[in-house]
């Protein structure tokens, strides 16, 4: 019984443990970002790259498991906090929210086709049209 329980716990741990990569369009000439920078970008407080190119943010729907993981593990924010920031921008006219796509595949495709874009993908990404950015601090 104990072995069965341990097996179930280990298995569920494997399924929930996504390894998350930050990806950008090759036009973005940055190879690392800090957690604080990522929070600024995803909360739309920073909307241009250092070379003044506009940042285009792509995300999955807020209840998507991978988005929830990204939000909590990378940004250290809860998905509902991001939703509130984005809703405030969208429905009060003071700014733009990220563009929502439906699947991880669409997200990679959108980032690869959009100048200045940033998004996230799982670790086994095989797409030479996006750059993987490391997270520091």
């Amino acid at each position, binding site marked *: 019984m104990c072995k069965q329980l341990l097996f179930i716990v280990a298995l569920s741990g494997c399924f929930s443990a996504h390894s998350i990569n930050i990806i950008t369009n090759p036009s973005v000439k940055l190879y690392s970002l*800090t957690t*604080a*920078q990522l929070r*600024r970008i995803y909360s739309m*407080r*920073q*909307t*241009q790259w*250092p070379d*003044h190119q*506009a940042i285009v943010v792509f995300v999955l*729907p*807020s*209840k998507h498991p991978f988005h*929830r993981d990204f939000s909590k593990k990378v940004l*250290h924010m*809860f*998905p*509902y*906090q991001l939703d*509130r920031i984005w*809703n*405030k921008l*969208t*429905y*009060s*006219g*003071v*700014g*733009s929210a990220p563009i929502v796509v439906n699947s991880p595949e669409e997200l990679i495709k959108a980032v690869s086709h959009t*100048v200045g874009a940033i998004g996230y993908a799982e670790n086994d990404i095989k797409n030479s049209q996006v750059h993987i950015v490391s997270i520091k601090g």
Partner: protein
Amino acid sequence: MNKKIVIIVLMVYLILAGEKYSWADNITLQNWQWHGFAAQGLIAVDGSDFVRDDKGVSTQLTELGLNASTQITSNLRFAAQVVYLDGGNRYFKGGRVDYLLLDWNFLNTQQWKGNLYLGRFKNIHWLYSSTRDVPFARPSIILPQSVYFDGFRDIAVGGDGGALKLTYSDDKLGDFDVNFSYGTSPLSKEQSQLILSDFAQGRIKQDLDAQASLYWSPALSQWRFGLSLLNSDFSYKGAQQDLFTSGKFSFQFYTLNALYEGEQWEFSSEIYQERFVTTGFYHPAFLKESIGQGMYVQTRYQLNKDLTFLVRYERFYSNKEDKKGEKLQQSSDGLIPSYFAFQNDLVIGASYDFDNTLKLRLEQHWMEGGARLTPIVLPNPQVNDQRYWQITALQLMYWF
């Protein structure tokens, strides 16, 4: 809305958009973003005319909105939203231009961001002011009436003029937001009567509205703290056949707020003080100053990613020297009952997310007092003859 401002904003937009289009840059008129919401509910009020003059379940809980925005140049954006609201007696029923503005992003670095908004802008100063009409983005169907008083909705929701927003992000100190706005709101005769009295035949005009706010969120913290200041002046021009004379109203409003956003628990609170000075109006020599105070504390508990519960308690009195309303009743020779001097509200509620864009919300309010029932300046005790009253509301909301 001030027609001149609409025309100016639209003309500037069309000129700039046309120029940009002709430059055949990668940003074109195709880059429109469209969003909207639709919400319909049922609301029952027992003991007041908060929604309708008689008892029973009402469908007057309709909120529709559609907005569009486009990036004209790399630092210039156009955004507009129209809404249709039906809340019964809560506010004027009909369509409105909610905001229509040009957004100039004049400062943009990794840490600083500065935006100037010209045209009709939303109030961005209070905790929930910018999304008070967006059903799924506010915490409850009916917001705390002492701050988000529906009778003042068309004055408090925004203004025609300019607003400035400066944000600063520091890895150690946290995030700072500073906001300023200056602009007035046009008011119709119906809106004048909603605020003043059904017998007011003249028109009220907002002469000044200046607001400022500051928000701070410590680095990597779940807390956010804010304060806001408001100064507003109104004038009333009496009609030839009118019970009231011309007069002036001066209103100052100060708030402090705190918000904690945890994984499952959320706490928020706003405390505030208002100063209301009436000169004239009842008779030419009339002068009255009152200082009102209030606060609410609210908690939300997210049971799982779809189900959230809400509890809120709110207290408000319109004159801190007369919290129980005894002076109000005496000074009106008993015509205005004492409970019009205060309003308290206990709310419990729940909301369920069916998916990313569909939510159902249900709430129950136990109210005491009538200080936030319209008309505000000359209350109607014939209709609002109950000290204790209740609201039950259910609303289904969709957005895209």
